[in-house]
Structures are given as structure tokens and as C-alpha cells.
């Protein structure tokens, strides 16, 4: 049965905040920096517990990335916190030279990613961040789907040596990942086994994909459901195996189609296992103001859109 128990509702950024506090307790080298968004990033608990290991940088994200790179020289494990837009596009060159090319153990933690930031509009709704970060050699890119997975991911990256981009969001969403589900960087979570169509989802689209899969299964269509939380390095093996079995693939993400999960899955399939593919994501467009729900509907990121994509791709099978 494709059945995931919803155990509550919370924002993924709170999962980050809880994970950061726990990581700080486990390892005295964990330090945190924030660019004037402590409350938004849920970093208050860490600040309260470890004030001497917390660095307020003010509204100066470029400096924050550099200071974080420097803190690694001396053995610290810095976690930077700001919105996804200011964590990537605004500071791309700082990340490129001082962190990625220099191989620094910095954890770039980015909240309010994507359309679900809502009313603030397109200036803050970054939909290109996964692409930018994934292009950087040596960068690990993770986009967890609920509170539990974000907390687990935060703890996992603290133990992982190397630069990481961790992307999460603002709205409260269902909690459905079991709290004891192991989080392995670079390893897909195979949520449900099926034979007719593969659905591969990341971030907030994972729950939408669950709802779509339930609808498809109710119609007798067997769904292979895969959660890709680590977009880079991509678990190509899991994707190719599933595609070989179902012969039809759908991807779903809260990001541009160009440069996101869909692009990367398409690349992997084209090289290893050419398979009919449909992609759910934002199609070369900026966002706009609105409630998260309105925006997800307008830009085609609802469970109905994943469902429709699955029907289309099944029709493409010979």
C-alpha cells in the first residue's frame, strides 16, 4: 500500500533549526553565521545555547561566505543562514572561489527557496539556485522534503567533509518521513515499488507526488516512487534501475526545469537508459506575489500536475 502516515505539520526550516542545535551539541566545532535573519532561519535555539559559536554578520552575505570559508581554516564547521536567493545568486562568485574551488567545509543553508516563499514575490523566490550550486565542481546539493528529513539532513552534513548546499523552505508542510528513516547523502529514498511509471520528486514536491501516486494507484496504475533528496551527487543507479523497470519517468520539483532535478534526471536517462520523460517544474519563468497555495497551482506544481504528467508519460510508452 502506498500509505504514509502524516504525523504533524511544520516548516522544513524548523527541521534545520532543530538539526543545527543538535549538531552543535554533538560537535563543538560546529559554528553558525547569519545575515540578519535569525528568526526566519530558526537559528535562535543554536544562538541561545552557543552564543560564542554564533556570528551575526548583518546584511552582508558576500562577507558571510568569506568568513565561513576562513572559519574552516582552524577546523570549524560553519553553517551559514540566509534566504536561498541571498545564499546563491547574490554570492555566487564568493562561493565559487572561496568555498567550492578552495574545497572548504562550509554548509550553505538556505531557507525560503522557491515559489512557496509566497507574498514577497519574485525578487525573493529563487528558482535557479539548485542549478547554480550543482554546476560548481565538488558541491553537494540537498533539498529535503519535510521537517524530519531536513533535520536528518542537517545532522548528516555536519558529519560530511566538503561544501554543501542545503535548500529548504518557508511554509508548514506535512511531516511524513519517519523520524528514524536513515538519511544517507547521495542515496535515493525508494518510497514505494511499482512497475508502470516512475515518479522522482524532491523537496516540497515529494508530498505532492505521494498524493498523485495514491490517485494513480487507486486507478490501478502501479507507481515506483523515488525521493531524490540529494540532487548532487545524483543517485543515477536508483534512477536508471527504476526507469528500466517502468519505461516511463516523471520528475517533480519547485525549481526551474532548466538546471534542476528534471534536467539532471534527463541527462542521466539519455546517457544510460533512454526513457520517455515528463517534467513538472517552473518553465522558464519568474514567480510573483500570492499565497504559496495559489502560486503552486498557477505555476503547475500541484499533485494534479504530477498526476497529469504521469498519464502523459504512460501514453508515450510503446
Amino acid at each position, binding site marked *: 500500500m502506498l500509505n504514509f502516515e502524516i504525523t504533524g505539520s511544520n516548516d522544513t526550516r524548523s527541521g534545520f533549526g532543530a538539526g543545527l542545535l543538535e549538531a552543535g551539541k554533538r560537535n563543538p566545532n560546529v559554528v553558525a553565521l547569519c545575515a540578519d535573519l535569525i528568526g526566519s532561519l530558526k537559528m535562535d535555539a543554536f544562538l541561545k545555547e552557543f552564543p560564542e559559536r554564533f556570528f551575526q554578520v*548583518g546584511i552582508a552575505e558576500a562577507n558571510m561566505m*568569506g568568513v565561513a570559508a576562513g572559519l574552516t581554516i582552524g577546523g570549524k564547521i560553519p553553517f551559514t543562514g540566509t534566504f536561498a536567493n541571498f545564499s546563491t545568486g547574490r554570492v555566487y562568485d564568493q562561493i565559487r572561489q572561496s568555498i567550492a*574551488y578552495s574545497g572548504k567545509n562550509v554548509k550553505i543553508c538556505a531557507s525560503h527557496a522557491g515559489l512557496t516563499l509566497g507574498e514577497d514575490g519574485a525578487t525573493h523566490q529563487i528558482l535557479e539556485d539548485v542549478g547554480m550550486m550543482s554546476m560548481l565542481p565538488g558541491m553537494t546539493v540537498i533539498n529535503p522534503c519535510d521537517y524530519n528529513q531536513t533535520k536528518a539532513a542537517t545532522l548528516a552534513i555536519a558529519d560530511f567533509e566538503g561544501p554543501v548546499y542545503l535548500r529548504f523552505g518557508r511554509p508548514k508542510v506535512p511531516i511524513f518521513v519517519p523520524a528514524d528513516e536513515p538519511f544517507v547523502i547521495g542515496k535515493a529514498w525508494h518510497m514505494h515499488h511499482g512497475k508502470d511509471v516512475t515518479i522522482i520528486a524532491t523537496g516540497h514536491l515529494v508530498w505532492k507526488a505521494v498524493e498523485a501516486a495514491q490517485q494513480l494507484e487507486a486507478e490501478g496504475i502501479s507507481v515506483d516512487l523515488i525521493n531524490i533528496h540529494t540532487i548532487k551527487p545524483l543517485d543515477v543507479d536508483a534512477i536508471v534501475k527504476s526507469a528500466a523497470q517502468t519505461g516511463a519517468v516523471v520528475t517533480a520539483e519547485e525549481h526551474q526545469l532548466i538546471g534542476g532535478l528534471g534536467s539532471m534526471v534527463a541527462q542521466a536517462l539519455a546517457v544510460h537508459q533512454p526513457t520517455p520523460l515528463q517534467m513538472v517544474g517552473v518553465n522558464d519563468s519568474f514567480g510573483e506575489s500570492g499565497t504559496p497555495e495559489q502560486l503552486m497551482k498557477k505555476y503547475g506544481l500541484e499533485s494534479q500536475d504530477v498526476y497529469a504528467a504521469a498519464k502523459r508519460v504512460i501514453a508515450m510508452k510503446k
Partner: protein
Amino acid sequence: MALCRSTWLSTLFNKAPTIAASAFSRCNFAALIAFSCLYIMKSTEELSGIAQQVRRDIVRMVHAVNSGHPGGSLGCTDYFVALYFHILNHRPDGFDMNGHGEDLFFLSNGHISPVWYSVLARSGYFPVSELATFRKLDTRLQGHPTTHEGLPGIRVASGSLGQGLSVALGAAQAKKLNGDPSIVYTLHGDGEIQEGQIWEAAMYAAHHKIDNIISTIDVNGQQIDGPTEKVMSLGNLRAKWEAFGWTVCEMEGNDMAEVLKGLTHAKSLTGQGKPIMILMTTSMGKGVDFMEGTPKWHGVAPNDAELANALGQLTETLGDY
């Protein structure tokens, strides 16, 4: 303790800082000053000799690959030699990225890599012969400094300007967290401080009272498109940095005795709650008459005749690589 491989210098350099430190600890300032004068007088000549060799290395390196940045490198040679052969407490043997218990240096204007590579090699971080690989395929001596190829002595990539101060501040804060009393040094071009990130970092350093950093700006008044005054006037640098909460010193950067005095003085100002900035006046291309005082040699290599001319003005004191 500086551990220099150059045998003709090692005895003097290994002992002098210890004597100086003990003079400090006893607060015997008269003895310290007397000692310092004697020491600087004795060593200045030898350091100037090293600087001659480093300048030869610079022009030979850029000539060999017909690319690179000789102008700023030559202008900052005396600073680098004073730093690596006298001021820094560092371990050229067994380079450690974290640098616990060592002073650290960050070059923010990474394009003057030739002078840094020469000084790193001459002070024992890697074989001097490796200078011949500068900017060539598969080299550890990339056009701009990088950690990517594992070259000992480099702790972060630089070249895209304006980033080094932030990184150095992070490293300085890590030292404080680790209870390490060592000092972090940085060097910047004067044109470089047109980058906005420098001023973000300047504000940050004062706010967090990062007083274990000594930054230096190479004030040579030149950048690629011409004099800084014409391209983008820097205004009153002392007033700017003081307004940002830094202690500001000035230093003549092409006089070895003045550089030693200036860096030693700056060191005495650490630990007082404020970051330290040295405004260092230099002449771009110093030591090679036809390269001096012009932005023309910012990123241009000499041809064969120009190399011969340049080498004729610089004494080979340690042996060419």
C-alpha cells in the same frame, strides 16, 4: 619560531625572535629597543639581498611563460620578504592547512602570485626548482593562487578581488575560538578596495573586535586602466579605515628597514580590541627602472631584451632556480 631553510640566515632568524619575545615578556623595553635596532640593522642588509633574488625570480617567471603580473609583485617584494623571513611565526616544513599555533598570511590580490610563490619557495615551503613550472600545464603554481593543486603555503584561492579579507577574518575568529594567540596577516591592492565586499568585511572586523589581524593595502596608486585617482578615486584612505573602526598605520613599503619597523609596530598594536590596517606606499615595478611607477607592467611580461636589462639591475644573491 621561523624555521627557514636558508642556512646562511637560519641561525640568526631562529634565535632573534626568541630573544625579542623574552625581552617583551620582561617588559624590558630599553633592552628590546637596543636589541631591535641591532637586529634590524644586521638583518636588513641580508633581507634586502633576499629581495634582490626574489625580484629576479619574478621577472624570470613571467618572462618564461610570457604572462603574469610583474608590476605589483615587484612593488610588494620587500613586504613579502620581511614577512616570511622575519615577522611570521610559521612552519614551512610540514604545511598544515589549519595552521594551529602559526601566524597565517592571506593574499587577497592573488594576481601578484609570482612574488608569493618565490618567497614561499625561498623560505622552504616547496622546492625552488618548481618556480620553473609557473603557469604551465599541470603546475601547482597556477596563474592565481589556489589550494586546488595542493601547493603548500596557500590556504584559499584568490584572484577574484575583494574576498581575502573576509576569509582572513574567519580564520582570525577561528584562532580566537581555539585559544590560539597567533596573528593573521592579509595583503590587498589599492584598486581592490573598490570592491564592496572589502567594506562589508571592514565593518564586520570592527564590530566583532577582531584584533588579531594585521591587514596591509599596497598603495601604489595604479590599476589596469590607469592611476587609481583617475579610474576610481580612493579618497582619504586613512579617514575611511579609521571611520570603519580600524587602527591605521602608514609604512614606506620599498625600504626594508621601514617595512620591518612598520610590521613590528603593527604587531605591538594587536590585542587591543581593534583590527589593524597598514597603508603601505610602494612603487609598482620597484627594482626594475623601466617598470617602475607605471600601470603598463601590471600584467605584461618582459621580452628577452627587457629581461636581460632587468636582470642586469638585480643581484643574484641566492642562485637562480
